[in-house]
C-alpha cells in the first residue's frame, strides 16, 4: 500500500449514549455529548486548521488556529476546547476567521527557520500544511526580530533528535509524555517568549527520565522531534501494517518504507492492543534485523569443535533429515524432539509441532513457554477451563482496583503499563504484590495504595490470606459463586482455617497482617477489581498453585466475566499465547486438547495421515535429563537460546553436549548454537508472513515488508525437513497453514488471513458462536461450565537461604532490553542497559563492603558469575535482583533445577545466593583488575 496517513479528528472520542445535534457550515451532524466542535466538524468531513490539537491528546487550546464562530456566541472560540451544544450552528470558514488564522500563522512563521526544502519533515510537517491551508503569503513581521533560530539541538537520544529551533511550543510532546506514556519527563519551562520544551530538570533527553517511547515524536507537528532514520534516509513512501515482535502486548505498527528499507516504525492508531502507542523496543529497536551478525546461509559441522561450513539449503535440510532418521533408527522414535518458539508466528509454530508429531512420530515437542507461563496454562485450565487471560487490554480502563502481582508492566509490557497508569491517574486504586519496589509503586501521579512486599516464594501464602479475609469477613459474592462456580463450600472451609489468616502467615510472608487485610478488603469491595500478573507468579515451585489461588480469589469476589475485572497473565514474548495455542506442549494438541483424547487425535490423524501417540512426550527439562541419561539424542531448537535462557546453565550445556545432533534455527549464532551441528538461518519479523497472538488472545497479522533475506520462510524449511524425512508436508503459502489450524482447532474456526485483513484483528475464540471473536471470556459461564474452586495449600520451596547462601536472588527484565538480548543488544538500546546489574539493598551492600558499581561475585549452589552492583533501596534486605539480557553475565549460571511441581516451569524467582566483592585481597585485586583490563 502507499503511505498510510490516518485521519486525525483533532480531539479524542467521547463515549456515551447521549448525543447532540449540531450544524457546522450548513451540515448537520450528531455526535456523543462532550464531543468537541473540532471533532464533530471532522466527522462531518470538515477539517478545521489546527496545530496544538491531535486526537490522541486532550484539547489544549493554545495555538489559536482552530478558531470558529458560533451563531449567537461571543468571540471566536477554539473549536478544540469547545464542546458541542444542542442546536449549535458553527461556521469554520469566514473572512474574520481567515484573517485571524493568517495572523496566527504569521507569528509562528516569523520565528521558524524557512528551510522547508531541506528540512527532514518536508512533506510531513503540519506547520507547513497549515501555512498552505490558511493561505499564508507574507510574514509582515519579517525574520530579523528576536527568534530561536540558534536554539541548541539535542542529539543525545540514539533514535531521535530534538531541534529546538523548529519548536512552536504547542506542548503536544509534553502532553503526549504525560497523557499517553504517563512518564511526565517533559515540561514547558520558562514564560512567554522564553517558553521551551525541557526534558527532566534541564538534562539531555538521554539523561532525563525519558523512556524513549516515541510518543513525543509521534505527536510533534514539525521536525522538532524527528526520527534520526528519517533525517538520514528521507521520508518513507509506502506502509505495511504489521505486528511488533517483542513483548506479549503485540502492538500494531505501520512499517514505513522506502523501497525495501524500513525508515521507521509508527504505532498504528487502529491497533487493538496499542491504539497508537509504542515503547522504545517496538518503535525503534528493529535494526537487529539488518545487523551484520545475522547469519544468512545454512551451516553444518560434524562435531561442535569443528568450524562451521556454509552449505546449500538442500544439503542442510537433507543432512538434518538423514541424521534425525539415523538417530531414531539406532535409539528409537522417542530419541528426538523439538522446541517451538514464542518469537515465531503461529504458522511456524504449528508446522514445527506437526513435524515432531507426524514426521518424528512422537510428542517430544515443547515450547519456551515451559520456562515462563506454563503454570498459567495449567492453573487457568484447571479452574476456568482454558489457558488464557480473561480480558482485553481495554478492560483495565474500567477497573476500580488493579492488583499487580509479580509483574513489572512499565518495564516488561510498557504499552499496557501506560494504559494502566492512565487508569490509575483517573483514580483507580493499586495494589502491588512484589518483593521489589517496582516503578508502579510510586511514580509521577501514581502511588500504590498497598505494596505487599512479600518474601520471595510466599505468593501462595499471601493469596490464601487475601482469600481468607474475603471468606471470613463476609466479602464473598454469594450470588456469583452460587450461580457460576463449584467446590466453593469445601474451598471456603479450607481457606477459612486459622493457619491461612494474615496474622498467621505474617512471619512467613513478611507482609504486615493489617496491610494485607486492607488490601484484601479493597480488592473484594471494589465494583470492579482486576488481577494482572507475570512471571513473578509462575516461575516458582508453586507457580501453578498460585495461578489457581488467584483464580479462586477472583471467583470468590465475582470478579470474572465483565469489563474491568479478570485474571490476566502478562505474557513475556510476543507469541507466548499463540505458541501455546498451537499445540506446542507435549501433552496437548492445538487448542489445549490432551493427546489421549481419541476424538481429537482422530481429527489430526485423518488430516495428517499418520497415527499419533496418545501418550505425552518429554518437556524441555525432561529432554535435558533424558539427554544426560542417554535416551534423548537429537533436538530441533526453533528460535530459542536455551543455553542462555534456561536455568542451571551447566546442566543445560551438559545435556546439549551429550546429544548427537542439535539443530538451531535462529537469526544469530547464540549460546545454544555453540553446541549445534546444524544452523538454519531464520527470518526476522520484517520478513515473516503469518500471525502472532498476544496476551489478550488477539490474533494479529504479521506482514512481510521484504522477502526473506535467507531465501526461505522458516515454515518452508520445517516442511522440507519433514518431507526429507519421508513425511509429505507442503503449503503454498502461510495462509494455508492458518486454514488448517482453523479446520482442526475449534477456537480458531473462524480465523483466516482474509478475515484478519478485513477486520484487523480477532480475539479467540472465534467461531460460529463468536464470529467476531471474544474480547472478554467467561461472560455467561466458564469454558469448563462451572468455575472450579481448588484448594491451594502453601508449601514452602525447598530453596532456602542458608549460612553459605544467605540472600535470595530473583530475576527479571528491563525496559530497553528483551529476554536474552539477542535482538536488543544489537541495537542502540544498549545505551540504556549495556550490562546486567545486581540490585541489592544498602544494608546488604554495606555488610559486604560493596559500593555502587563494584564488580561482585554472585554464587549459588550450582554456579557463580560476576557483575556490577547497583545499590538501591527498591530491594528489601536479604533479596537481590538481576536481569538476564547479557550472555557475558549468564545469570542462569546460578539458577537451579527447582521447578513448578505441576509443569516443571523453573523456579527462577527464588535462588539462594551469596554476593561478595570480586576483589577479596590485594593480590586478587591486582589479578582481577588485570583480567578486566584484558
Amino acid at each position: 500500500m502507499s503511505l498510510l496517513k490516518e485521519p486525525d479528528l483533532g480531539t479524542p472520542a467521547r463515549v456515551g449514549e447521549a448525543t447532540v445535534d449540531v450544524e457546522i457550515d450548513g451540515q448537520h451532524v450528531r455526535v456523543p455529548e462532550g464531543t468537541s466542535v473540532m471533532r464533530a466538524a471532522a466527522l462531518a468531513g470538515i477539517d478545521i486548521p489546527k496545530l496544538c490539537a491531535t486526537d490522541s491528546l486532550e484539547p489544549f487550546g493554545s495555538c489559536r488556529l482552530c478558531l470558529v464562530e458560533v451563531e449567537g456566541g461571543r468571540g471566536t472560540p477554539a473549536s478544540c476546547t469547545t464542546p458541542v451544544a444542542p442546536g449549535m450552528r458553527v461556521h469554520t470558514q469566514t473572512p474574520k476567521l481567515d484573517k485571524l488564522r493568517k495572523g496566527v500563522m504569521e507569528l509562528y512563521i516569523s520565528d521558524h527557520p524557512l528551510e522547508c526544502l531541506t528540512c527532514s519533515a518536508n512533506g510531513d510537517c503540519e506547520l507547513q500544511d497549515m501555512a498552505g491551508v490558511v493561505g499564508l503569503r507574507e510574514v509582515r513581521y519579517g525574520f530579523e526580530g528576536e527568534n530561536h533560530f540558534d536554539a541548541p539541538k539535542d542529539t543525545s537520544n540514539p533514535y531521535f533528535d530534538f531541534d529546538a529551533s523548529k519548536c512552536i511550543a504547542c506542548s503536544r510532546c509534553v502532553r503526549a509524555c504525560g497523557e499517553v506514556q504517563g512518564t511526565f519527563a517533559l515540561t514547558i519551562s520558562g514564560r512567554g517568549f522564553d517558553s521551551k520544551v525541557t526534558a527532566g530538570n534541564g538534562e539531555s533527553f538521554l539523561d532525563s527520565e525519558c523512556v524513549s517511547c516515541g510518543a513525543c515524536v509521534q505527536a510533534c507537528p514539525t521536525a522538532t522531534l524527528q526520527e534520526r532514520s528519517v533525517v538520514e534516509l528521507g521520508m518513507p513512501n509506502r506502509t505495511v501494517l504489521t505486528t511488533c515482535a517483542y513483548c506479549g502486548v503485540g502492538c500494531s505498527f505501520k512499517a514505513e518504507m522506502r523501497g525495501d528499507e524500513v525508515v521507521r516504525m509508527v504505532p498504528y492508531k487502529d491497533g487493538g492492543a496499542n491504539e497508537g502507542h509504542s515503547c522504545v523496543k517496538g518503535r525503534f529497536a528493529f535494526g537487529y534485523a539488518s545487523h551484520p551478525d545475522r547469519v544468512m546461509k545454512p551451516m553444518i559441522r560434524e562435531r561442535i569443535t569443528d568450524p562451521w561450513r556454509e552449505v546449500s539449503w538442500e544439503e542442510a535440510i537433507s543432512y538434518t533429515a538423514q541424521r534425525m532418521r539415523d538417530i531414531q533408527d539406532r535409539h528409537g522414535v522417542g530419541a528426538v524432539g523439538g522446541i517451538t518458539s514464542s518469537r515465531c508466528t503461529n504458522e511456524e509454530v504449528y508446522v514445527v509441532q506437526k513435524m515432531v508429531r507426524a514426521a518424528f512420530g512422537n510428542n517430544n515437542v515443547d515450547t519456551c513457554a515451559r520456562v515462563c507461563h506454563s503454570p498459567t496454562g495449567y492453573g487457568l485450565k484447571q479452574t476456568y477451563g482454558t489457558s488464557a487471560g480473561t480480558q482485553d487490554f481495554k478492560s483495565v480502563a474500567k477497573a476500580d482496583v488493579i492488583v499487580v502481582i509479580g509483574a513489572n508492566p512499565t518495564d516488561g509490557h510498557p504499552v499496557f503499563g501506560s494504559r494502566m497508569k492512565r487508569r490509575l491517574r483517573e483514580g483507580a486504586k493499586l495494589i502491588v504484590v512484589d518483593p521489589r519496589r517496582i516503578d508502579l509503586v510510586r511514580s509521577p501521579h501514581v502511588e500504590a495504595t498497598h505494596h505487599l512486599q512479600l518474601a520471595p516464594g510466599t505468593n501462595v501464602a499471601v493469596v490464601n490470606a487475601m482469600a481468607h479475609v474475603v471468606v471470613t469477613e463476609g466479602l464473598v459474592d454469594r450470588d456469583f459463586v452460587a450461580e457460576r462456580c463449584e467446590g466453593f463450600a469445601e474451598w471456603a472451609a479450607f481457606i477459612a482455617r486459622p493457619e491461612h489468616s494474615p496474622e498467621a502467615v505474617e512471619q512467613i510472608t513478611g507482609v504486615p497482617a493489617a496491610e494485607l487485610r486492607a488490601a484484601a478488603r479493597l480488592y473484594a469491595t471494589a465494583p470492579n477489581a482486576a488481577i494482572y500478573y507475570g512471571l513473578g507468579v509462575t516461575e516458582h515451585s508453586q507457580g501453578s498453585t498460585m495461578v489457581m489461588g488467584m483464580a479462586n480469589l477472583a471467583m470468590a469476589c465475582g470478579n470474572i466475566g465483565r469489563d474491568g475485572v479478570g485474571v490476566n497473565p502478562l505474557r513475556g514474548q510476543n507469541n507466548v499465547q499463540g505458541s501455546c495455542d498451537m499445540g506446542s506442549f507435549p501433552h496437548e494438541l492445538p487448542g489445549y486438547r490432551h493427546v489421549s483424547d481419541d476424538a481429537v487425535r482422530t481429527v489430526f490423524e485423518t488430516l495428517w495421515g499418520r497415527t499419533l501417540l496418545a501418550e505425552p512426550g518429554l518437556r524441555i527439562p525432561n529432554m535435558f535429563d533424558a539427554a544426560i541419561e542417554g535416551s534423548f539424542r537429537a533436538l530441533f531448537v526453533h528460535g530459542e537460546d536455551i543455553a542462555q535462557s534456561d536455568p542451571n546453565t551447566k546442566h543445560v550445556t551438559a545435556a546439549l553436549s551429550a546429544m548427537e545432533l542439535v539443530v538451531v534455527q535462529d537469526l544469530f549464532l547464540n549460546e545454544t548454537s555453540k553446541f549445534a551441528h546444524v544452523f538454519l538461518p531464520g527470518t526476522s519479523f520484517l520478513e515473516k508472513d503469518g500471525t502472532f497472538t498476544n496476551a489478550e488472545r488477539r490474533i494479529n497479522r504479521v506482514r512481510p515488508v521484504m522477502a526473506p533475506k535467507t531465501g526461505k520462510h522458516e515454515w518452508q524449511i520445517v516442511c522440507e525437513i519433514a518431507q526429507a524425512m519421508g513425511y509429505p508436508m507442503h503449503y503454498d503459502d502461510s495462509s494455508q497453514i492458518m486454514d488448517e489450524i482453523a479446520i482442526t482447532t475449534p477456537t480458531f474456526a473462524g480465523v483466516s488471513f482474509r478475515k484478519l485483513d478485513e477486520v484487523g484483528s480477532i480475539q479467540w475464540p472465534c467461531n460460529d458462536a463468536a464470529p467476531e471473536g471474544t474480547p472478554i471470556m467467561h461472560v455467561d459461564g466458564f469454558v469448563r461450565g462451572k468455575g472450579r474452586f481448588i484448594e491451594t495449600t502453601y508449601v514452602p520451596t525447598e530453596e532456602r537461604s542458608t549460612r553459605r547462601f544467605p540472600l535470595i536472588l530473583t530475576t527479571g527484565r528491563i525496559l530497553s532490553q528483551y529476554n536474552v538480548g539477542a535482538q536488543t543488544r544489537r541495537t542502540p538500546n544498549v545505551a540504556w542497559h549495556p550490562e546486567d546489574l545486581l540490585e541489592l539493598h544498602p544494608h546488604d551492600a554495606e555488610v559486604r563492603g560493596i559500593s555502587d558499581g563494584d564488580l561482585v561475585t554472585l554464587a549459588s549452589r550450582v554456579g557463580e558469575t560476576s557483575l556490577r552492583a547497583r545499590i538501591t533501596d527498591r530491594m528489601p534486605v536479604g533479596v537481590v535482583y538481576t536481569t538476564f539480557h547479557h550472555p557475558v553475565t549468564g545469570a542462569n549460571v546460578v539458577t537451579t533445577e527447582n521447578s513448578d511441581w505441576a509443569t516443571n516451569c523453573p523456579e527462577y524467582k527464588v535462588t539462594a545466593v551469596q554476593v561478595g566483592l570480586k576483589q577479596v585481597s590485594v593480590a586478587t585485586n591486582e589479578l582481577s583488575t588485570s583480567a578486566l583490563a584484558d
Partner: protein
Amino acid sequence: MEALPYVRLANEIAVQFRHWEPGEAAAEIAAHLRSFWDPRMRTQLIAHVEAGGAGLDVLIIDVVALLREQKVH
C-alpha cells in the same frame, strides 16, 4: 548425592499433596503423571520403586502401585 531427576520431580509433586487423604493424593498424582509425564519417565519411576525406591517420598510408592495397574506404553 543428587537425586535422580524423576525421583526429584515425583517428590516435588508429593509434597504438594501431603495434606490430602493418602488414597486420594495417590490417585490424583497418578492421574497427573499419566497426563504430563512421558512414559519413559513413568517406567523409570516404576523400576526405581522395584529396585527399592531409594529417596522416594512414601506417597509415591502408592502412586507407582496405581501406575502399574495401567499398562505403560
